[in-house]
């Protein structure tokens, strides 16, 4: 690469994507990023989630550490004021100068504020950046009513934000309908009705003439038709305008109505200056969606790096699917049937508030566009018809009619290889197939190597179908049988055990299996039986099913000795109990270590010592910690509002309650939880299977996070729950996981493979979509009622205690277990450190 200093002005989503593309193709690229915002790129598409609990950090698309690692020279709060093209230098507000060889303008757009007298007052705001959101939040604290001016896509997002802030919310739209760009009048009406049901007042065909002081509220808006509306806060969201001032000032070519003119390589009229994203004008069009911006960024990156055979930008499909205040809205292609000769088919179901329209070509062969409101289930199929020019069936209306049982759902096999599967990351069907042919053999590996379905996630069902179908064609169909002894998946075995009320492995094997079983199916069935019936795990018929850790209710270490972990609910422990642990460790010479789950692990116990150790622990009031089980481990907590200056809820009490509620619950894999007392999140709840974070109003629930080898940030499941609501959600989620997950599948992987993902889980748990919630709750209630400390039961049972002998015919100990001392504690001796020779077979 030539001496090529690239300066990028702007670090929005597209600017960041450009930097990412440059670095991934040329790690040594010399890049300077100048951003006028105080922080690096964040997710503007999901901005409204800022008000439902997501922090600025969670919305972030990158971090300063990442940019440093990439050796990107970046400057925040660095507003560029001038470009000197002759000297190839840019100047910032603070007087800094940056030389460039190539310059990229990724300056984005700004919200258009209509020229209404009075629009510049303190509580007249816009909705674009995190700083804007902070201003809105501050203003909302002293407001009761809020008005959004603009009923487009962003305006409705903004209205939802105001609603979430507790304001009585209005939307004022100049056009006669909502979302006039994307959907037609009939769809707009239905959307209006649905939104008004949610308590947002919609006023269409309203032109605001002035904003004057109000009587009951801060302001009064006066409309052209003589009506007025009083409000405390006004949010303008009436479209965007490109940030093109820098380009204008240095005489780059701009469009009549704004926008920096670019060619197919995203070059401006100066070949060393590029423009991408919402500030760029391509063929007289500005693209206000993120996917086309990403495509421009990719094209520009290739051109900047002077790569051979660079791609060209050739326009982008503006079809979109989204959820506005819980209402599904989809718009595809020519939604308004503007193509000459176009014909439409519509379906409207007023009781269910569903509206669907398809627009087809004059000859009825091709789909030109579609509008979907209230139900977007056909979106993927319709989009594929349109994008790939697939010939329509003879009766195109069957595509949207609900009763058409033979609705020709377009199989993935019918798609051409160039069909776009994921538009966020521009992944085609061919890319997915190539990834599979290169060794990705399940959904999650396809996702991680192609990035498909990791943007908005709208294509997840389609992607799963494609992966399944391709694997099947390759003869690689993933066999979901648990092992050779049962031709069933774990979920199917669970259903069989539940339906046939099977209570033992032998019974299940006789009815549905073959052979003797093995170390795969036995523990899996043992776990299902325990999840469902909650018998004592060392009962005669269950004992042979348990892994060694469950058999001996302790964790086997590499030398055959065991570690012991008593339960310390919520990590809260008295001095007396700590002393007991210390004395015990001293007496048996155990190695002690504090665990990540806020308890104490005691290592180096011999098998035959376990009952004596546990007798002492139980005397002192401890219970088993299930560190050995695929079950709830710990509920970590911070100290909460009893001590902490910042705490807003009593996180310790909640953690203790949760730990005591779910202790002993057997699951497909271990379960970790945490409760944080405020948004500072000291308990690291977002890396847990179940994470709870206190808010001023209650609890935010996060699900399916994971630390460990494949970290996964937990998903925000529900916000501001009260105690009962929180527990109800956790009950249902846990039991649904237990019923449906694969063997040894943590919640994180379960979620990634759950068709429909988070939204589906919310439907099941919150809306009781499957009608199983009552059953899930009573199942958990049964587990809670039938809890027993397995160590207490074992100590009371002489037959069970017989298992805790090293030798059935001798009182000797295992000579293979020997220790050396390291930092004043025991440590397993290596083979050449052992003083007694151990007989090897």
């Amino acid at each position, binding site marked *: 690469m030539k001496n090529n200093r690239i300066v990028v002005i702007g670090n929005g989503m597209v600017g960041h994507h450009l930097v990412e593309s440059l670095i991934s193709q040329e790690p040594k690229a010399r890049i300077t990023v100048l951003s006028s915002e105080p922080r690096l790129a964040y997710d503007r598409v999901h901005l409204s989630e800022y008000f439902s609990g997501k922090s600025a950090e969670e919305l972030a698309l990158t971090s300063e550490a990442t940019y440093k690692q990439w050796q990107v020279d970046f400057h925040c709060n660095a507003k560029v004021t001038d470009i000197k093209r002759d000297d190839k230098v840019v100047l910032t507000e603070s007087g800094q100068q940056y030389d460039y060889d190539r310059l990229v303008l990724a300056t984005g757009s700004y919200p258009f504020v209509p020229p209404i007298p009075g629009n510049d007052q303190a509580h007249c705001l816009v909705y674009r950046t995190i700083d804007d959101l902070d201003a809105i939040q501050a203003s909302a604290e002293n407001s009761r009513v809020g008005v959004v001016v603009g009923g487009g896509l962003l305006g409705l997002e903004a209205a939802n934000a105001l609603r979430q802030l507790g304001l009585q919310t209005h939307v004022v739209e100049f056009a006669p309908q909502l979302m006039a760009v994307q959907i037609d009048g009939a769809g707009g009406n239905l959307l209006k009705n649905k939104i008004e049901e949610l308590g947002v007042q919609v006023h269409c065909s309203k032109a605001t003439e002035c904003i004057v002081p109000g009587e009951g509220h801060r302001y009064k808006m006066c409309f052209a038709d003589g009506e007025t509306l009083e409000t405390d806060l006004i949010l303008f969201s009436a479209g965007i305008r490109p940030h093109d001032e820098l380009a204008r000032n240095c005489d780059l070519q701009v469009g009549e109505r704004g926008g920096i003119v670019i060619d197919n390589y995203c070059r401006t009229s100066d070949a060393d200056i590029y423009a991408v994203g919402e500030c760029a004008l391509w063929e007289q069009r500005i693209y206000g969606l993120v996917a086309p911006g990403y495509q421009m960024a990719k094209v520009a990156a290739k051109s900047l790096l002077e790569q051979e055979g660079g791609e060209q930008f050739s326009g982008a499909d503006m079809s979109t699917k989204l959820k506005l205040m819980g209402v599904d809205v989809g718009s595809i292609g020519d939604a308004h049937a503007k193509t000459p000769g176009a014909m439409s088919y519509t379906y409207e179901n007023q009781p269910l508030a569903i509206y669907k329209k398809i627009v087809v070509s004059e000859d009825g062969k091709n789909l030109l566009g579609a509008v979907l409101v209230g139900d977007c289930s056909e979106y993927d199929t319709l989009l594929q018809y349109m994008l790939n020019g697939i010939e329509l069936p003879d009766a195109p209306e069957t595509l949207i009619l609900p009763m058409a049982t033979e609705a020709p759902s377009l199989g993935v096999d019918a798609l051409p290889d160039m069909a776009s599967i994921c538009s966020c990351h521009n992944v085609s069907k061919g890319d997915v197939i190539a990834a599979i042919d290169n060794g990705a053999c399940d959904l999650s590996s396809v996702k991680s190597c192609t990035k498909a379905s990791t943007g908005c996630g709208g294509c997840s069902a389609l992607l799963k179908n494609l992966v399944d179908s391709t694997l099947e064609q390759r003869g690689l169909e993933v066999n979901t049988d648990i092992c*050779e*002894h049962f031709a069933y998946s774990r979920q199917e075995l669970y259903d069989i055990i539940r339906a046939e009320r099977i209570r033992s492995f032998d019974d299940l094997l006789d009815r549905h299996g073959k*052979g*003797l*079983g*093995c*170390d795969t*199916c*036995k*523990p899996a069935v043992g776990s299902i039986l325990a999840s469902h019936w909650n018998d004592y795990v060392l009962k*005669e018929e269950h*004992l*042979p*099913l*348990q*892994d*060694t850790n469950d*058999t*001996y209710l302790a964790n*086997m270490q*590499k*030398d*055959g000795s065991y570690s012991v972990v008593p339960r310390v609910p919520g990590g809260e422990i008295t001095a007396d109990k700590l002393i007991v642990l210390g004395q015990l460790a001293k007496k048996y010479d155990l190695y002690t270590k504090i665990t990540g789950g806020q308890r104490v692990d005691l290592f180096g116990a011999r098998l035959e010592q376990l009952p004596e150790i546990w007798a002492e622990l139980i005397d002192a009031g401890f219970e088993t910690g299930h560190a050995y089980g695929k079950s709830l481990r710990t509920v970590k907590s911070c100290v909460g509002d009893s001590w902490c200056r910042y705490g807003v809820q009593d996180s310790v009490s909640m953690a203790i309650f949760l730990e005591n509620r779910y202790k002993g619950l057997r699951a497909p894999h271990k379960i970790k939880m945490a409760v944080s007392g405020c948004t500072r999140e000291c308990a690291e709840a977002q890396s847990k299977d179940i994470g709870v974070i206190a808010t001023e109003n209650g609890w935010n629930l996060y699900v399916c996070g994971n630390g460990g080898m494949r970290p996964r940030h937990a998903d925000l499941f529900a916000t501001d729950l009260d105690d009962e609501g929180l527990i109800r959600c956790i009950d249902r989620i846990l039991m649904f996981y237990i019923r449906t997950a694969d063997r040894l599948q943590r919640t994180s992987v379960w979620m990634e493979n759950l068709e429909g993902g988070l939204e589906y889980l919310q439907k099941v748990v919150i809306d009781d979509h499957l009608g199983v919630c009552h059953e899930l709750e009573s199942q958990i209630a049964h587990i809670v009622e039938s809890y027993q400390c397995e160590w207490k039961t074992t100590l009371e049972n002489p037959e069970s205690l017989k*298992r805790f*002998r*090293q*030798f*059935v*015919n*001798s009182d*000797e100990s*295992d000579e*293979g*277990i020997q220790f050396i001392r390291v930092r004043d504690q025991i440590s397993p001796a290596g*083979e050449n450190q052992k003083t007694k020779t*151990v*007989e*090897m*077979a």
Partner: protein
Amino acid sequence: MNDNKWTHLCKTSDLVKDSGVCALLENTQVAVFYLSRPEPKIYAVNNYDPIGKANVMSRGIVGCLGDEPVVASPLYKQHFSLLSGQCLEQEGSQITVYPVRVEGDDVQLSIANAK
């Protein structure tokens, strides 16, 4: 096989159905498994796991792979045949298998005929 080579190991009541126990014969640790299916049968192998390098085989889960009765190491889960001692995943790894029989309520072993 000569009868006087059989040594008393433990009682049948020491065995655990479809699971393993460990018995000591002089200095040798022997893992004894009692499989109740397809018909009741007892197997004995050395207790030392040659891959995990610890005396733990008796604590493994028993079952079958195909027709072969096996025990899975509790440490790293390799399967060893209870008939031949051969490790199914790792060629060259093997555990000793001992002939074992039941006389009355005595479990007896023949160390000399180990294979």
